[in-house]
């Protein structure tokens, strides 16, 4: 029973990592760049929701504030691409990497300036209540996190596999020039991806803030999610989720059964192992090139 309890709380944590990892993978799939501000997007999404919901700020009902903050983050993602990232169109990947790291710092300090640096809790209806299932006590928020994450992953996966826009996004990531010639508006498609990844970050942020206190440095969680994305196989949406779940589950077990401190390094130890033995990740999208 004890292990089961650890497993469930690990899965719920892992889902949040998985959602942030989804954001990494989305941007990577569409633009072949890595957005190192993805964790900070999540934090910002959480604070936008918190600012709209909490009694001391705007005090909107949660079920109105949640979709609103998802929308705000989607627009923000799109605008960020339109106004900032598009200026680097055609520049090397490293320029985008540096820019997103800088963006992360900016977002962290902007959030601190608006909402303060103290930890705050989202007044979310998800935060209350437990459900007991055959001896395992599940909190409502853990259950919500798992359900929402699975649904979102399936939707995004279907979107990329089936829809005209999703396929256009994949095409644009593989070869921009060829995508143009096929009639795909590459820049607009990339902007939309940033929008989707902003929305995904907001969902992750709302769920994470429902689980516990938030502060502007919570975005640093993104590093763990980055490890999750790499473990899952960068470029694969289901891989991102699986990677997130693995990292999430490893932590509580390592904390329980290993000496103190090991739980912090366990995800990265796994990351190293995956890079050595399966460099393309567990669910890989690319294959070795025949030479």
């Amino acid at each position, binding site marked *: 029973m004890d292990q089961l309890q650890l497993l469930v709380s690990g899965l719920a944590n892992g889902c949040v990592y998985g959602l942030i990892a989804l954001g990494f993978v989305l941007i990577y799939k569409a633009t072949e760049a890595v957005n190192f501000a993805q964790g900070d997007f999540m934090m910002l999404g959480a604070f936008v929701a918190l600012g709209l919901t909490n009694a001391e700020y705007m005090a909107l009902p949660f079920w109105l504030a949640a979709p609103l903050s998802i929308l705000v983050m989607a627009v923000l993602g799109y605008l960020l691409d339109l106004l900032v990232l598009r200026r680097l169109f055609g520049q090397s990947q490293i320029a985008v990497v540096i820019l997103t790291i800088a963006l992360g710092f900016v977002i962290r300090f902007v959030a601190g300036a608006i909402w303060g640096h103290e930890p705050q809790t989202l007044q979310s209806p998800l935060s209350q209540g437990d459900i007991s299932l055959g001896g395992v006590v599940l909190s409502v928020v853990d259950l919500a996190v798992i359900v929402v994450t699975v649904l979102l992953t399936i939707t995004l996966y279907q*979107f990329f596999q089936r829809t*005209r826009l999703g*396929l256009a996004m994949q*095409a644009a990531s593989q*070869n921009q020039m060829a995508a143009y010639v*096929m009639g795909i508006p590459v820049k607009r498609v990339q902007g939309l991806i940033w929008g989707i990844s902003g929305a995904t970050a907001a969902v992750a942020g709302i769920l994470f803030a429902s689980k516990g206190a938030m502060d502007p440095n919570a975005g640093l969680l993104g590093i763990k999610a980055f490890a999750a994305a790499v473990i899952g196989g960068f470029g694969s949406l289901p891989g991102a989720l699986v990677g997130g779940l693995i990292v999430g589950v490893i932590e509580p077990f390592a904390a329980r059964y290993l000496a103190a401190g090991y739980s912090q390094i366990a995800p990265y130890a796994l990351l190293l192992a995956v890079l050595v033995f399966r460099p393309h990740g567990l669910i890989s999208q690319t294959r070795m*090139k025949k030479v």
Partner: protein
Amino acid sequence: MSLLEIRNATLKFGGVVAVNDLSFAIEEGEVYAIVGPNGAGKSTVFNMISRFYAPFAGQFRFDGQDLLTVRPDQVANLGIARTFQNIELFDQATVLQNLLVGRHRHRQSTLLEELFFAPRVRAEERRHRHAVEEVIEFLDLQAYRDKRIAGLPYGIRKVVELGRALASGPRLLLLDEPASGLSVEETQDMRWWIDDIRRQMGITVLMVEHDMGLVSGVCDRVLALADGARLAEGTPAEVQSDPRVIEAYLGTGAV
């Protein structure tokens, strides 16, 4: 009215004049070639038609429409398809998937219909698959249908790129050096295909090519360029025997 009409096109890169006051027109149903030494500006002309480069000056009209008012992604919708000198395919996708992307401009379903795979989407999907299968049969690509591009030999990739352009159902097909890097047999195949593309499919072809055997074999008219400007225009035989063309290719002898 000509299908494609280019008037007084000029493009400079810094101080280098890549294309200099160039004018030519292509009639519907013909196969037209641009020849010239390396650096003559042949591919630059293609890239201006594709709207990758904006000309300094000049007019570009396709079927009466001003090409300079459309974005690069809208060129495909006008019915212009192209291949690239260095082959630009979606390397991580299969041959079939690459050809299906060629159908992108013909897809009409909405996002919601697609997410739920509505009957209309299924019917449309079947139609696109059918169109692509015709191209696969035409180009004899059956054996490679589900192979990833990344593992295919150069000659096959070249054919796949031609197939993707054909799958989009163009009115004007731009071929950038269709025979470069191909073996003698493959070049022969390419010649037959270009012939059939014009005769059976009724597609107008504009190509850049160095292989004069292929050019004289399939082209109605040839334009010779040097340093971005027109040297000569006419039938392949006329252009090949033009003294200015011979001079541009071989240089003047010490007379």
